């Protein structure tokens, strides 16, 4: 922890200043067809200062953290802010300056394992997979951990230390049928270090068996029919809908630019059974996949209720945008590395569970699809979204039918949410999400299964 060291530079702060020491440590291992083709570690750390003056931000950073360098970057950040303030005109007032003290450490308390044990773990998974399923054309096991350790000292007496680790295992299986290649992939893991999540390879054999079964079904499956249909989006997909299609349009910087959500505050944007929240740190008294207790501007992070009973209620913001929107900062200002400035980012965005069972939702559809897995998603200013669907089934007369091959679904989220007629009573959190918006950042998203209407890009 570097808090005491950073505190010793507080006398240098002439204006609103954030001084952050951050280190990201990333371990990545990749076993392809039994061969370890990646065995690496990346540690990127350093100090940054951000100064706010007359409506302008100056930012400077360095991987070095000796006293002279810290003095230099605090001075440089101030000079950068002054340079812009001298060239332009914009003073919207004083940023919120409420100080907080916080220490939150999610490091494992177990003894750290060696690299050999991690590689052996992957090899055991690979041995199990390839010996049981000898017809696989390729198997790919990727272990990726990211420890984000941050120390923040501000001119307004915020002193915060957080250590938030995430470890995920990505499994990809490939088969060939009639000369055509098919893949299936899954992501396992989430909040925590390796030792807390991957104790025994046998714990994952069941998931590997399910993946192989689905891969085979997909290879035998049908192409869904292109068109506009009634579907069930599984809980693994509805979280991406919450994040990509709704979440981004309700980030205050995007709202200020003119995203579609700007016009809809306090208006109906969904059926009344839809509730959507960006959770800061905890859901149901448990830590979310990416818990944020304090953001990188020093704001204590609060949950943001975005949609309540179908009505758009709030946006996510940072200090400057809170000032412009005449509201309080929500704690959504996050930076990825030490040399990145905080941006308005989501944390753990989820549609809340409803009252229906998945079985009764399937039984209610005469002709449609149950989409279960996705590998990516995108959305834009209009809230139009696209998700790649990697597995699912057709639904005929209230029953699951044949599996489907890869497809894509799309829709305008604020229209699609008005077609939501049933929501399941379960909750699934996706823990491996990385969101790109100038910088990458880990995010969580979750939800139940929802019944709605979307466009399908089949054949």
């Amino acid at each position: 922890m570097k808090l005491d060291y950073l505190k010793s530079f507080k006398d240098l702060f002439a204006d609103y200043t954030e001084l952050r020491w951050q280190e990201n440590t990333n371990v990545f291992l990749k076993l392809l067809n039994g061969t370890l083709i990646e065995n690496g570690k990346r540690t990127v750390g350093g100090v940054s200062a951000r100064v706010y003056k007359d409506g302008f931000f100056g930012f400077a950073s360095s991987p070095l953290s000796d006293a002279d360098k810290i003095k230099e970057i605090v001075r440089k950040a101030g000079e950068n802010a002054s340079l812009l303030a001298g060239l332009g005109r914009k003073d919207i007032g004083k940023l919120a300056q409420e100080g907080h003290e916080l220490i939150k450490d999610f490091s494992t308390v177990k003894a750290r394992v060696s690299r050999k044990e991690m590689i052996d773990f992957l090899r055991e998974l690979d041995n199990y997979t390839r010996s049981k399923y000898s017809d696989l054309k390729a198997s790919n096991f990727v272990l990726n951990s990211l420890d984000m350790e941050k120390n923040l000292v501000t001119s307004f007496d915020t002193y915060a230390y957080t250590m938030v680790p995430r470890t995920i295992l990505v499994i990809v299986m490939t088969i060939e049928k009639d000369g055509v290649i098919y893949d299936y992939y899954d992501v396992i893991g989430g909040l925590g270090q390796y030792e807390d999540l991957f104790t025994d390879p046998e714990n994952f054999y069941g998931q590997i068996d399910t993946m192989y079964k689905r891969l085979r079904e997909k290879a035998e499956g049908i192409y869904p029919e292109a068109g506009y249909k009634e579907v069930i989006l599984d809980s693994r997909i509805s979280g991406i809908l919450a994040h990509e299609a709704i979440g981004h349009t309700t980030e205050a910087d995007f709202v200020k630019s003119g995203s579609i959500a700007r016009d809809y505050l306090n208006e109906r944007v969904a059926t009344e059974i839809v509730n959507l929240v960006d959770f800061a740190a905890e859901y149901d008294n448990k830590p979310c996949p990416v818990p944020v207790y304090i953001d990188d501007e020093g704001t204590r992070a609060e949950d943001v209720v975005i949609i309540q009973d179908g009505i758009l209620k709030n946006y996510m913001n940072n200090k400057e945008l809170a000032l412009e929107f005449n509201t309080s900062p929500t704690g959504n200002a996050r930076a990825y590395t030490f040399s990145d400035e905080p941006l308005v980012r989501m944390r753990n965005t989820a549609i809340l569970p409803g009252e229906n069972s998945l079985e009764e939702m399937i039984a209610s559809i005469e002709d449609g699809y149950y989409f279960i897995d996705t590998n990516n998603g995108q959305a834009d200013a209009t809230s139009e979204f696209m998700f790649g669907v990697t597995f699912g089934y057709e639904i005929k007369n209230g029953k699951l039918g044949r599996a489907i091959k890869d497809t894509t679904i799309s829709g305008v989220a604020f229209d699609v949410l008005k077609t939501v007629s049933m929501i399941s009573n379960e909750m699934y959190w996706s823990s491996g999400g990385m969101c790109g918006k100038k910088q990458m950042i880990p995010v969580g998203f979750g939800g139940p299964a929802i019944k709605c209407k979307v466009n399908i890009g089949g054949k």
Partner: protein
Amino acid sequence: MELLDKCLALLKEKGADEGEVSLTHVQNEEMELKNGNIDLLRSRDEYYLNLNAIIEKKRASIQINKIDEEAIAEAVSELIHNAENSQIDEANGVSDQVQERDFNNCKDNYDPELMYKRLENFNKEVTAAYPDLVLEGAVLEYQKRYNYYRNSKGVNLSSNHDNYFFSTSFFGRRNRETSSMNYTGIALENLDEELYELASLPYLLRESVEHLDARIIDNKKFTGDLIITPDCLRSILYSLLSHLGNDMLIAGTSYFKDSLDKKVLDGKFTLKTEPVSDLLAIKDYYSGDGVVNRNDYIFAEGVLKNYLLDFYGSRKTGLQRGPSLGSNLVVEAGDKSIAEMVESVERGIILARFSGGQPASNGDFSGVAKNSYYVEDGEIKYPIKETMISGNLFSLFQNIMGISKDRINFGYSLMPFLHAKEIVVSSR
């Protein structure tokens, strides 16, 4: 460079049979326009030190961003431990293409006041010319990059290079109507030209405003032609090239497996990698595997001429290391005007942006056609929305009707318009 020699010596002393070390030093100055204001100036000074060790054919790598003795000693110690505990792979090794080269392309033309002026003019001109356009953001950065590489076989490379990079995102907005987000990025040698005149920007800005009047295609589903714009072609090519890289060739799942010197795509399609092109602002003199890149064909008139494997991938597959790892893509110009391409379309769309996932391994893809136009009987009819397309990546490049003679220079790629056939278009 003395630091790298010390690192190599330390790797050897601690037990590495082979080692390689590279250092990148980046100085970056970034100015950001957000919601009509230039309100951030960010200065970064970063080091990335990469260390690779091979012990008894077992490999590990580590990257740190510190260059002091203590940090390096700690990293080397951990690296050696990780390599000793890794897995034997006969393909592990460091480049033996021994060269001592120093590439220099620094202009040292950082000018913060000119950056401010160009960015301010961009904001003023675009706002005045397109009142219904929202500039979501624009970033102008100057980057100076020093690279150094050494390995235990005697390869000794260094380069320095600087350039500007401009990126912007925008969309149309009128009353309650919003058009899809659009964006582009351009690398520049200097700031001689105004930003709003660069590359495809005039076309993209106009397109975003026109899409405020976008319509759902009347014809709900049809099979037709596709004219892919330069911005969109660049992103689609990355999917195609993933079949020429390490992962898919080592796994044996590449569509282009065993296809070297075979005609696999349409004869009208020629694609080159030009890492040291005079035409492009970005230079990619050598890659992280310590091999000097060269300009060469990837596909020549539809014939696969080179894979894009790195040194390890080359040894693992027994194929040649690529001329580059896929940098600075240049598609050879065709002989059609864009007007001629449109005139030859009976029914189809101009695809300006594709919002879709990575195509399946068999090349099948589907996604949303963004910022695109409906074309019928040789005429652009109207901008479209909520339209999906599906097809096959490889079929697309095997059925090319024409390539434009005009190309867009993005500074890191040179792309024409490309006309292909047989795509399924569907709308709500």
